[in-house]
Every structure is written in C-alpha cells, then in structure tokens.
C-alpha cells in the first residue's frame, strides 16, 4: 500500500477527465499516464465528513477524524498505521513514512494515540537505513545500543508502574500512554535486534545524493519516489506514505516565479492559474513515472504495480477557496478493476474512508469499517 498526498489541491479541470465511466479521454495531467492506462481509476465526489478548514484537513487525510479545525481536535489512527499493526512484522520496516519539504500544518501517518509520525525527509538517509550494510563494528555497536535502550526501558517502566497506583483516572490515562509507549518501543527494538542480524537487501541502484535546494522540488520528489520504489522492490516494507509539500517553495518549473501557496490563491487570475498548472503537472508526471516503474518490476507473473495499491490525492480540492470536498483522488495498481472515472454525488460526498476500507481488504485485513466509512467504495471491484 502506498499513500501519497500533496497539500496543494488540484485544478479540477486539469485533473479530472471530462467524461465519467470507462471510456474517458485523459485529462491534461492524466495524459502523462499513458504507459499505465487502464491500471488506475479516478474518483470525484469523495471527502471526509465533518472535515473542513482548508489546510488543517491535512491532519486527517489518512485518518478521517472529524473536525480537524476544532480547538479540541483528537486525531485517530491512520489507515497505513492500522495496516502496519497487523502486517508490519513481515518486513524489516513495518512501514516507511516519507516526505518532501517537511511539515506544513500536519503530517500523514498517525499512530494509534493520535500522534503524528514524522516522515523521513532525506532520500540519502532512507537508502542508508534500507541498504547500506553495517560494518561488523557498526553492527556490534548497534546491537549494543539496542541492548542498552531495552535495559533503560525496562528500568523506567518499573519506576513508572509504581507511580500509577497513586494517580487519579485521567492522570493515569496519561501515564498509561507512557507505559504503552515503553512496551511498544521494546517490542520494536526486539524486532530490530532480530533484523539487525540479517543482511540488508542488495540493490543495484547507487546511494542517492540529497538535493538540498528546495526549489528543486520536482527532482526532490522524484528522488523520494525512487526510494519508495526501491523499498517496495526489495520488500523492505509493504506500507509507505509520502507527504508532498510544494506549498512552501517556489518550484523550479518553467514559467513559475512565485511560491506555490501564493499561486494556489490565484483569485482566478489566468497568469497565476497557468503557473499553478505547471507545478501540479510536474507533480503528476512524477507520479506517472513512479507507476510506470512499478509496472515494469516483474514479480513472478505479475508486476509490482499489480500487487501494490497506490493512492494519490490532496486534502483540498480548490486551493483558492480552501475547499475540502470533491477531493482529487486517484487509485492505481492492486488487483482492482481499473480504467474508470467514478463520479459520486458532488453535493453529498461519499466518505473517502470507504476507499480506505477497500484498500485494507485488498491487503488482506478482515475489516469492513475504518473511521467514518459506510462500507467499501462502490464501483471499485476486485478483479
């Protein structure tokens, strides 16, 4: 499962094809997806109920938690973390949270306690974690460090448990989070200890160099997509989230001279809209390239794309008015029957979490509900 979110919104008429159903002419952006035609579906009319407030809806994009703009908002577990809880143990990394340009108002992956999981922003570091073999010395040191950390966790756990007898209920809930964190971290470290003794997978691709100029946003995103591809190819993980944040920068794309955020507040000025379209298109080309590469990886009869459901979308539809309904959503890959443009009720949206349920089921989880879902996504069937 791969979940990609861009926080800019999308110019609807460039993203969505004009026709609905199966035989649609690709839109301007989707014209770049020809190599994977028929292997993706576009959906219009999806959003999270009780989710409005513009940028702040980033927080709940993968969780569906209600009222993200509220002063007392409490987030819930994201769909990728839910999958990782059950399936993460199969791979060295239960999940990979990746990002380009760090945080804007929120992040993608959310743990069970509603806490954001910070994404890895450096492709070089991702490569290093996944593939760069440790020297014998490094390995010994790592095992030692893991051992020390586990001992420390045992120690603080004992001390904290003694506390809990004297606490009131609400205070105890806070402490329980600490105790749960200690326990879960110990489990993760134990698993890390096991994996530390196994060789890391070998890949032909060389270690990348990070691009530090953040106006090279397109290239930076492409590099991160490449890392995601390597991670899936090597089965280092089966669950990836990718947070794209072009809003903060002036993206180096021909014709663009202003920060993406300023462009999204185009006020319907044609000059700004044109620049924004260029930025969005570049992002979509990156996605198309990623999907094409997934399709080219053979896994004994089927391609990696056939095995991996890739979700792409944004928490906003129209950046100019900060609308959070009728979100631009695309699902590619997996064993779904693709090649369609699904149109749901634009005035009464279908919950985006329905798509998440479909994705969870595709991964083999026996769940028929997730957050604000009302079922699986109708019209999206398995092949």
């Amino acid at each position, binding site marked *: 499962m791969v979940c990609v979110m861009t926080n800019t919104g999308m110019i609807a008429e460039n993203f969505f094809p004009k026709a609905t159903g199966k035989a649609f002419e690709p839109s301007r952006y989707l014209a770049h997806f020809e190599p994977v035609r028929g292997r993706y579906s576009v959906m219009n009319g999806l959003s999270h109920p009780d989710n409005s407030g513009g940028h702040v809806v980033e927080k709940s994009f993968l969780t569906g938690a209600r009222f993200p703009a509220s002063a007392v908002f409490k987030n819930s577990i994201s769909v990728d973390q839910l999958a990782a809880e059950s399936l993460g143990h199969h791979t060295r990394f239960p999940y990979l949270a990746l990002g380009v340009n760090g945080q804007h108002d929120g992040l993608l992956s959310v743990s069970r306690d509603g806490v954001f999981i910070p994404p890895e922003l450096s492709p070089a570091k991702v490569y290093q974690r996944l593939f760069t073999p440790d020297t014998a010395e490094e390995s010994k040191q790592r095992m*030692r460090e893991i051992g020390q950390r586990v001992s420390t966790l045992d120690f603080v756990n004992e001390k904290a448990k003694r506390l809990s007898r004297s606490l009131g209920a609400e205070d105890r809930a806070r402490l329980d989070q600490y105790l749960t964190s200690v326990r879960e971290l110990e489990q993760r470290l134990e698993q890390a200890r096991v994996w530390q003794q196994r060789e890391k997978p070998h890949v032909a691709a060389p270690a990348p160099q990070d691009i530090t100029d953040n106006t090279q946003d397109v290239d930076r995103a492409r590099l991160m997509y490449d890392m995601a591809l390597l991670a899936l190819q090597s089965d280092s993980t089966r669950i990836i989230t990718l947070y794209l944040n072009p809003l903060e920068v002036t993206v180096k794309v021909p014709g663009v*001279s*202003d920060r993406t955020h300023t462009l999204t507040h185009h006020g319907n000025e044609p000059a700004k809209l044109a620049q924004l379209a260029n930025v969005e298109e570049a992002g979509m080309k990156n996605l198309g390239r990623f999907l094409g590469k997934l399709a080219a990886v053979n896994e004994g009869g089927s391609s990696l794309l056939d095995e991996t459901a890739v979700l792409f979308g944004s928490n906003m539809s129209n950046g100019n008015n*900060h609308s959070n309904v009728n979100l631009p959503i695309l699902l590619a890959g997996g064993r779904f029957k693709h090649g369609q443009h699904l149109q749901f009720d634009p005035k009464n949206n279908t919950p985006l979490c329905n798509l998440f349920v479909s994705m969870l089921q595709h991964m083999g989880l026996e769940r028929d509900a997730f957050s604000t879902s009302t079922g699986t996504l109708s019209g999206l069937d398995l092949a």
Partner: protein
Amino acid sequence: MRRSTCSLLLATILPFLPTTLRAADADLRGYLEAHCFDCHDSATKKGGLDLEALPMQFDAGERFEKWAQVHDRIAAGEMPPKSRKVRPSEKENADALKRLDDQLHAADAARVAKTGRALFRRLTAQEYENALRDLLHLPGLRIKHLLPEDERRHGYNKIGQALDLSNVHLNQLMDAADLALTAAIATRSTPPPVRRDRYLAASGTEMWNWVARGDAVLLKDKAFDPLLPLPAANENLWGAPGDDLRKQRNTALGTRLRDYPHAIGFFTGPFERTFSQTLQWSPVYAGRYRILTSAWGFWWERGKVEPPHRNESFMLSVWLPSDGPRFIHSPMRRLGMFDVPTLESRVHEHTGWLDVNEELVFEIGTLTGYEKNTGRWASQSPGSCAAHSGPGVALDWFEVEGPIFEQWPPRSHTAIFGDLPIRALPKDSGLVVPKREPVRQRSRTGGGRPATRDLTKDETAPPLESVFSEHPQEDAARLLAQFLPRAFRRAVPVEEVQEYVRIVTRELERQACFEDALKEACKAALCSTDFLFVGDSVLTDAKAPRIRLTDRAIAERLALWLWNSVPDEELIALANEGRLHLPENLKKQTDRLLADSRSDRFIADFTDQWLDLRKIDATQPDTKLYPEAREHLKHSMIEETHAYLRELITHNISVTHLVKSEFAMLNQSLADHYGIAGVTGCAIRKVELPGDCPRGAFLTQAAVLKVTANGTTTSPVTRGAWINERILGNLIPPPPAGVPALDPDTRGAKTIREQLDKHRSDARCAGCHAKIDPPGFALESFDVIGGFRDRYRSASSGSTAMDFHFASGWDPKVRLNQPVDPSGQLPSGESFKNLADFQALVLRQPEALANNMLCQLLMYATGSEPHYSDRREIARILAQAKASHYGIRSLLDAIVQSELFLTK
C-alpha cells in the same frame, strides 16, 4: 426519540430528588417555559436547541455545555432575542441566572475537587529542550527539531489533554537525551585552543563573484578603488551574454582579492533585493564565540561614494547545521541587527553560542527583500555598477574569537562528572571505546574557515581521553546524588540513587568505560517520568474543595510559565523547605523570574501561542503585490510584539493597551512601514505616538496582521474570528457543514465586502457573523503585512499606480483598485466608521478584555482548559485588578496567588 425517553426518565427520577433541588428546578423550569419554550420546545427546536427535553442534569459533557451556553446567552442579553415583545424582568433574569449558575458551578466544582483542573502531563518539546539547556548549562543546545510538534487545545500546547505520547515519540526523546548528554561531556583534558582570527572582507572567495559582476565594489579610503575598473556604460555583465566579460574581470582580479586589505561595498538592485552572503566561517567546536564586525554605510552614485542618505543596517545570521551545501533559503537563525549610520567604520560586537557547522551569514538588513527570482541586481542593467545609484553597506572585516570557556572542563561536564579528572584511555584497556566525533570543518561551502588543514594534529587526531574514576561505585553514587535532585526537582532518597548506581554497575560489567556508564544512568533519568512529567500525581485530602499542589508542583508551574523550563536550584530549595507557597515567597520568586533573561522565553513562547506568532512564516507576501516586504521587517515585527508585551508587564500597563495605545515599540524598519517619522536605527525603542495614529497595540501590530492574513488577501472573517477569540474573549463556533467555501477573486471585480454580503442578508449566517465580521472589517484598513491602505492593491486592475517611494525610483507597477470600507456594526447595533471608532467602542468594556487576558494567561500558566467553576475566582481577581486599571503585571501577580494556580 432519545429525548422523550430522557423526559420520561426525568419524570420517574424527579420524585426522588431532594425537595430543595426540585423547588429550584421548578422555578427555573417556569422561567424557561415562559420565555424560551416558544422557540426551544421539543416541537419547534429552533436552532436545534430543545430545552424542553434537556434534562436538568449537569454531568460533564454535551449536556453541561448546553446549559452553560444557555446561561451565557441569557447573561449576555442575546436571549431571549431582541425581537421578542414579552421579556423577563431584570429580577426574573437575575434569579434564573443565579439558579443555573449555582447548579453549573456546584457540578463543575465537584468534578474539579476530585480530579483537579490540570493533568499530570509530559513536558512539551520546547520545555524539554529548555530543561536540558538549563540542566546541562548548554545554552545553545538544539534538540527540539528532533521531536514531533506538539498538538494544542484552545491554541495552547501547555494543556495536558493535547500532549500525547507514542513509542515513536519516546524513541525520539531518548535520541534527544543522548545527543544532549554527548554535547555536555568533555572529551579532552585541556580546552580546545582558542582562536582569534580577523578576516578581511574579500578573503572569502564567495565574495569575488559579486565584485566581478559589479553587484559589489572594492572601496579604498571611502572611495571607489579602480583596481577593478568600472564597466563601460553599455557593458552587459548579466547571465549568459555576460559570461565572457565576467570571466575577464575575474581574471583581472586573479588572486589579488585574497589579501585585499580594504572594504567591499554591497548595494541592492532597483528592487532592493536581498543581499545575503555567507562569510565562509563555521565553528569546528560548539561554544561561545565573540564576533566583531567592522562596517559602514554609504550612498553609491554611479561610481562615486557619498555619505549615506539615511541609516541602514545589516544582519548577522547563521545557517543551521546541514550535511549538504546551503543556499539563500536554507534554514537560518538570526544573531543580531546592527546600524551603519555614517561613512565612518563602526565595530559591532556579538557574543553568543554557536553550534558546530552553523555558518555565519552577512545580510543587509533594511534593504533586504525575500524571493530570489523576482528581483534585479545592479548587474542586470547595462553598465552594472557604473550605471547604478542607491544605498549601500560596506564591510571592512570581521573577527571571531573562540570557543570561549569560563572553565575547563565546562559546566556542562562538571554538572554530571563533578571534578573527576579526564585522562588518557589506554588502547589495551579492554573497554568499549566511547564514541568520538572527528574534529574537522564540516561546512560543505567551499573555502570554509577555519579549514581542517589549519587545525593542529592534537585537534584532528587527539589522544583518546575520558573521565577517570578510581572508585566508580562511590563516585557514581556521589555524582548521581548531585545530578538527580536537579533533574527531578526534589530530594532523592539514597535507595533511589542506588537504583541508578546499579545501571552504572551493569554497564561497567558490560565493559563500558566510566563515561559511558554514568551517561547511561543519566539517560535513564532523563527518560523517566520523574524528569519527563510535570504536575502533581498524588490525590490528597478528598474533603478539600480543591486539591492543593505540593510546593514542588508549584515550583514547576512557576518555572514552566515564566521561564518555559524546569525550576532552578533556588526554586527547588524553597520547595524542598516547604516555603514556596507562602505569599511573600511567591511574589519574590515571580519578581526574580521575570527579571531574569530566561523570562524572554515566556514572552516568545506565549506570543507564539496566544497571538500565533509561530505562524509568521506560514505564508509569504505575494512578491508582485508587496515588493516592499522585507526579511528585516519580518524580524522587526516579531521583536515589536515581544517588546510590547514586555513593556506592558514591566510597567503594569492596562489591558486596554491590547486594543489601543499611545505608544509603540518600534525600530526604523517598522517606523517606515507604519509611516511614522523620526525613528532611526534597528534597535527597538519606545516611541510616543501622535494622537490619531492607530499603531502600537497588538490589534494593529504588523506581526498580528500578518498571521491573520494569507500573504495574498485578507479576510474579515479570519481576522474577525481571531480578534473575537484572542482579544475579546468571545468563543466563535465553527461554520456549519455544507457552507460552500468562498472563492476569492483578486482581479478586483468584487470587494471582499460584496463577497461576504450573505453574512448580513441571510438570517442564518447573521446570527454568528454579526459578531465575527465587524472587527475584521475594521481591520480591512491593514494589508497582509500590516501596512495601512485605503485602496486594495491589484496586479492588473485599478486606476492609479501605487508609489512605493523606493530610493532607486523603481516602479513595480502595482495598481490601486477598489477603495477599502472599514465600517461596520457591532451586534449591539452601534456602528463604527473606521478602526478608531471600533477601538473606542471596544474600550468601553475593559473588563471584558481583562477577563479574556486572564483566561489566556490561566490556560498557559496552569495548563488547563477553562472550567465553569473558575468563574467566581476569576471574577474576584478582576474586581481586585480594577484598581490598577487591569494592569497586566497585576493580573500576573493575582494569578500566582490564586487558588487556580496553587491547586491542581
């Protein structure tokens, strides 16, 4: 259907309730039947409120909130609505409100008595960083960026319910603790050598390109140095066409600039672009450094140096550490701003902590812009500097001395290891070698000074040294007995110290050296709840009306509030003696904490949260519409708001000054921006304002106006909601679902007022928007960076061109379009023509402002959401504070002495 079941249930319970309660309820019910049920019974349920079915029970949750809302709307005179003809008498209202208030208060107070208002919670990321900085005496320690950003409730991350913890987070806290301890521990027996080097302006190779292009000039004896001749009037030095010419000029310069003893003058282009240039100096050791800069100001007139027309300033900043090369937009922190008012060279000094691989950057302050690709340089016009005229700043040299340590080993080290010696660790000791970071120049900028080759062998390949203990068990016990009480803010019994000593023993058995073994014990301490969590966790006397905090918890609260950190030794000592809670000690400590420079952290953090200043970089002003926006201005804006709050506290100035002020805290950049004459220099100072000037108060400060706009447009709704909640204290409900978003049209065909017309014309919208919008309309007179306007700017439409009065005469071609209409009407019906009228109307109710200020401070200081049962105490504090016109310091002092602060 559920509601009628409730009513049925109520009917069966009612006979069993005590008679007095029933009587009060019956009176209340009578009031509701007479004045509310016409609209709010089960049949009509106007606005979704069914008072008939709402049971008179006040357990926490939605029911309680609804009754509280009923109380407040009646108290505010909003209900029954004005349109109603038969109205309750004053006495009827007072009685009903009292009955309701008694119920609400009693129910809430009962809950608070059992659980307290504030939770036992973990430290926030900023508190954690500050705590480690203080505990380890490492003022420049940076670890906050390793931790996830904290969530907030009601805008504050100090409230326990917002502060969750996951295993991911815990792992990062452990990483941060490790980093902090590593930074604290000395790895040499002698201090690193102190270097004092003076670098001539041209010694940094990165400067040379500017000179070759003609965007910077060589200046000797305050005049143009013809060492590199001026370009001819038609020579083009820009871009690809200018390649050859630039190469020629570079060759002509050769390596002569390396030892060039005179100054380099930098100016900005017609668009007054940012000049931001690395000085190619980056510390090899973390520590305190003294930086001297010799600089002066000038006016450049097509090849001639003249005295500057006004004061300019430059900024000294540092790029944050990075593994890769850094650019103009790489993350930075600012060290300081300095003035260059005349042709005379001035030496400026800055002393402070620098981290390894932070890199010094020289920026021209008052003249800087922001985005690189929309500006123009001198070199972009034919003739380059020969054809350019404009202001400039010249740099003679800069000098760096350091790392300066008051003692060796440094305090950070002795805080853990006391005075144990640091000795060579023999290679055959059989112990695990402690990690050592190689000492070298880490900056990836070419030619970074000091270069690795300039370091001595002793520095780059030092002998392996580590702290030595002859009697590790005893030493560990002794040292931990010192460290733990400071970390845990309390006395630590011997048995508890022994638990940590056992960690040392365990590590020693695993062949660790003493340094690593004690480090592990300290790490465990820093990850334990004793360090990480604050607030009392013990339930005390169940009969008490509120749970009194221990002195330790009071010490924590006071320090977390006024220093955004953990208590220091003086506070801990007072707490250990059980004397902190005494009123005179509370007052003395408040005075001491506010007088200490660490209280700057409170000012910065509180304004970050209360006034959203942390969002200052969330959006960038549209470069086409706001070409006068400056990085220097942005820094000045933040300083203004900080200085203003400090001034209000120090001189106990009335809360009315949130809204209107007769003075402002300004520097030259701000004064220019606000159109106030006679302010020179980059230092912030108090300026008395002319009577009709709207500036000064938070309401009209540029920082506030910027964070309530989005860089391109302002929204009266956004600003109005913000003013209502942060300044006036009116809670604004979220918009109803299904309201289509507004599609702002900056082509200017419609003004924002026209677009928001439905807020007035549609009764369903007007209910809330009659309250939300008016402050926003009053502030429409201020643009996205807080500048005054009476017409909206547009790139394309409008009858007049805007005159920016740039020194160079450049016209960015921004047009002035629709006129601004800052008028409006308050929910009370009173109307205002402009901001001044609006201010006057708001100032008629200073108590409302004081009430809100108090609530904001209480949330921050006590880490608790507002509770209904707080109200009586708040009313008492306000009655007391009235005498000082609700001075801010008086409010602070009242909080410290209040039961809301001294109880859980």
